[in-house]
């Protein structure tokens, strides 16, 4: 009986397991037409490679670069762009658009499955330590990519490791993206015309916003942000030497977390004061950028201490919605803290860039780089990938600046969302400067802007102020935090504790008198080990 039962189980398993294998076998998940050109390539770990040079190379991009939206483009527009690139550079570009809120999770699932994916945006330190990506040093040096060389090569730094290995293409560059942005029409209303240059002057403006309620009905939010990190980038350097980021403690030559810097306590005290006084929006630690924009576009937000585009795009949208009584924005990087230094901390070019799957073969990686290079080097390629084929024109008298023919959305146009634009990170300074110079509504004589506030802030207030604001130790030195996380078991506990407890001090759940106890607890659970690991990395890099 038992033997027969076993035989039955074996037969059942023999039937079901192949069924399961067939059912779970991934197919290349693409949202556009796959090239019909037949390939006689070999399949290795889900990657199909063509064997002849004439056949198009298929490259699958994962569009998690923030350059497109969930809303799908029209199929015929997509096919036009797809075919255009196929004709021009013989690359069959495929893409996967992830759900906006779960792009990282879906990426990890795809990478650990057999689904074909050749290029995606991610932190090279994380994915290289997991052997999930490949370096591109040789491919880049063995081929000529003039567009990449001209526009991206000066910013390769954060994508290169200590052994001079290039792990990908940069997504963002050194920036100062945390200005103080405020509504100057509200400032005029409350009688504070001068742009703040010190924390005291900032306080005058913020308390005037609170007391005089320019939005009316008690709805004014004097200042808003989406988390403590934002406030730290905006103001911490005005209280500490190192600003927001790692710093070198010269008393013991150890690399340390910004939270244990002298001055951090005073910074936190100021934030707490704002919270208690109703200056800082009480839900600032619970909201996301979208919610911030909704509040801003209701006319309630008077100022932000936040990544520049969060409130900046709202000001632009408000102008578009109501051009008769537009919200007028102003911004500054010139606020100095009690220590006399500029309060803002610069952000280094990110270690997150376009990286290439370890499973992709050399020809596929080369083709992927060719796509990026072509979009950087050729304006037709750039605008076709941005707005769609025959859906843009150069603005009158210009040879570099184009505008969509069809009504523009925040991303691309209504019928094409920019799915094929993979040269993301392209510096559009010249294009935007020309755009701004064509219309005086974009910037008025006193530096206050209406109209396209986002273009203005991007063009004049993102890159240039980097030189004057504070740079933390990790601005120029690419610490590998993934390695630290692997080396020090308590690292994630420490991160959780810092995120959680600092907010409690601000909201009053924990009294500020317990600050020293909190720091002691951090060291008790392993902050020492983190500092040792950071210091060892720093010394190795020196």
């Amino acid at each position, binding site marked *: 009986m038992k033997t027969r039962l076993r035989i039955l189980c074996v037969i059942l398993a023999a039937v079901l397991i192949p069924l399961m294998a067939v059912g779970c076998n991934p197919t290349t998940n693409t949202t556009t037409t796959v090239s019909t050109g037949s390939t006689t390539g070999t399949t290795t770990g889900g990657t199909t490679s063509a064997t002849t040079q004439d056949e198009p190379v298929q490259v699958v991009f994962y569009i998690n670069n923030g350059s497109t939206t969930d809303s799908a483009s029209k199929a015929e527009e997509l096919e036009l762009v797809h075919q255009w690139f196929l004709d021009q550079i013989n690359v069959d570009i495929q893409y996967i658009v992830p759900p906006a809120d779960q792009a990282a999770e879906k990426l990890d699932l795809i990478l650990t499955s*057999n689904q074909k994916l050749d290029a995606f945006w991610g932190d090279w330190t994380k994915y290289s330590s997991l052997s999930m990506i490949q370096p591109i040093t040789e491919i880049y040096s063995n081929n000529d990519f003039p567009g990449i060389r001209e526009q991206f090569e000066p910013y390769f730094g954060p994508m290169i490791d200590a052994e001079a290995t290039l792990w990908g293409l940069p997504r963002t560059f050194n920036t100062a993206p945390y200005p103080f942005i405020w509504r100057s029409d509200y400032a005029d209303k409350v009688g504070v015309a001068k742009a703040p240059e010190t924390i005291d002057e900032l306080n005058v403006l913020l308390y005037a916003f609170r007391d005089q309620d320019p939005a009316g009905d008690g709805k004014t939010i004097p200042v808003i942000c989406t988390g403590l990190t934002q406030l730290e980038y905006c103001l911490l350097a005005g209280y500490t030497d190192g600003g927001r980021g790692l710093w070198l403690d010269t008393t013991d030559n150890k690399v340390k977390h910004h939270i244990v810097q002298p001055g951090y306590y005073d910074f936190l005290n100021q934030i707490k004061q704002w919270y208690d006084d109703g200056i800082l929006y009480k839900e600032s630690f619970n909201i996301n950028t979208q919610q911030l924009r909704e509040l801003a576009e209701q006319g309630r937000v008077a100022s932000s201490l936040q990544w520049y585009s969060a409130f900046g795009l709202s000001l632009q949208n408000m102008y578009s919605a109501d051009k008769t009584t537009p919200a007028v924005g102003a911004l500054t990087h010139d606020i100095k803290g009690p220590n006399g230094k500029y309060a803002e901390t610069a952000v280094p070019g990110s270690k997150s860039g376009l990286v290439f799957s370890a499973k992709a073969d050399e020809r596929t990686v080369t083709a992927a780089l060719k796509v990026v290079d072509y979009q950087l080097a050729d304006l037709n390629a750039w605008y076709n990938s941005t707005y769609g084929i025959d859906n843009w024109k150069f603005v009158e008298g210009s040879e570099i600046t184009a505008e969509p023919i069809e009504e523009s959305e925040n991303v691309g146009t209504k019928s094409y969302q920019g799915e094929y634009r993979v040269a993301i990170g392209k510096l559009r300074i010249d294009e935007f400067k020309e755009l701004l110079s064509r219309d005086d509504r974009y910037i008025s004589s006193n530096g206050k802007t209406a109209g396209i506030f986002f273009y203005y802030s991007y063009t004049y207030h993102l890159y240039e102020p980097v030189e004057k604001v504070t740079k933390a130790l990790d601005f120029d030195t690419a610490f590998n935090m*993934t390695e630290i996380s692997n080396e020090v078991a308590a690292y994630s*506990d420490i991160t*959780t504790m810092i995120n959680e407890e600092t907010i409690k001090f601000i909201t009053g759940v924990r009294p500020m008198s317990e600050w020293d106890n909190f720091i002691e607890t951090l060291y008790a659970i392993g902050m020492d080990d983190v500092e040792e690991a950071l210091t060892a990395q720093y010394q190795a890099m020196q």
Partner: protein
Amino acid sequence: MVSNSITRLTGRRSGLFNRVYRFRFYYLMALPGIAYLLIFQYIPMVGIIMAFKTFSPMEGFMGIITGDWVGLDNFRKFIDSHYFSRVFGNSFIISFYRLIFGFPAPIVLALLLNEVGNRHFKKSVQSISYFPHFISYVVILGIVRKFVNLDGGYINIIIEKLGGQPVMFMSDTRFFRSILVSTGVWNGIGWASIVYLAAITNTSPELYDAAYVDGANRMQQMWHITLPSVMNVAVIMLVLRMGDIMNAGFEQIFLFYSPAVYSVSDIIDTFSYRTGILNMQYGYATAIGLFKSILGLILVLSANTFANKMGREGIW
């Protein structure tokens, strides 16, 4: 002739394949269920090995086989974590609250519905109570925010009208668990009451008639007839629920929580997600999951033994 038939029948019974053939349609009906269990419940158990190995996700399934053994390192890492006691405690406390408030609620609802005389009203209430079960927690979060938001939330508007100060319910540790549990009960009460209503339906009407003749009022009938008739089902549901006690509701908590309320809401699953899954430390995440499953198994066994000793029917 009769003897031959008996022999043939016995012969058939003795052959497993013949028996399968005889009941082939039942087996056919069971096949999808068996396939589901095998594919989604049993075969993935091979992955448990990851808890004891260094697993490289790039190697796919073979990574499970070829990874180096690390013994109980992943378990030690979890137990040594500063937050072990907190996530363990939160998982237990939130589940306990769900059990205390969520378990009797559908029984009470079923008992009350059973007493409703108007058939249309009863059906309407039933349908309305099932409805939340089909709403995702993302939508529920939106609804909850409409009520408890600091800015314009209905509850805070009432508080302000009464002269009080608005409260940040979603980031206040005093209220967060209550919000979780109450929305969870609201979400599941109608759906869970179905099984109890079915049990009540099976109660013999003669019992009620006899009780009525003996002078029992509606409350006494409910207490002495209806409630005992659902007790066996309730015990089985309770034992099953005990196995789930360490599953405090990842989806809901993940959507609702923020660092401000980690201290009362960070459970084993959210901790595992943040430290294991997001960092792609699958071995560590598997160890945490296995640890939780073993606890669940112990709780089911204990509850079943306890139920049997109390004279009730357990699961086995």
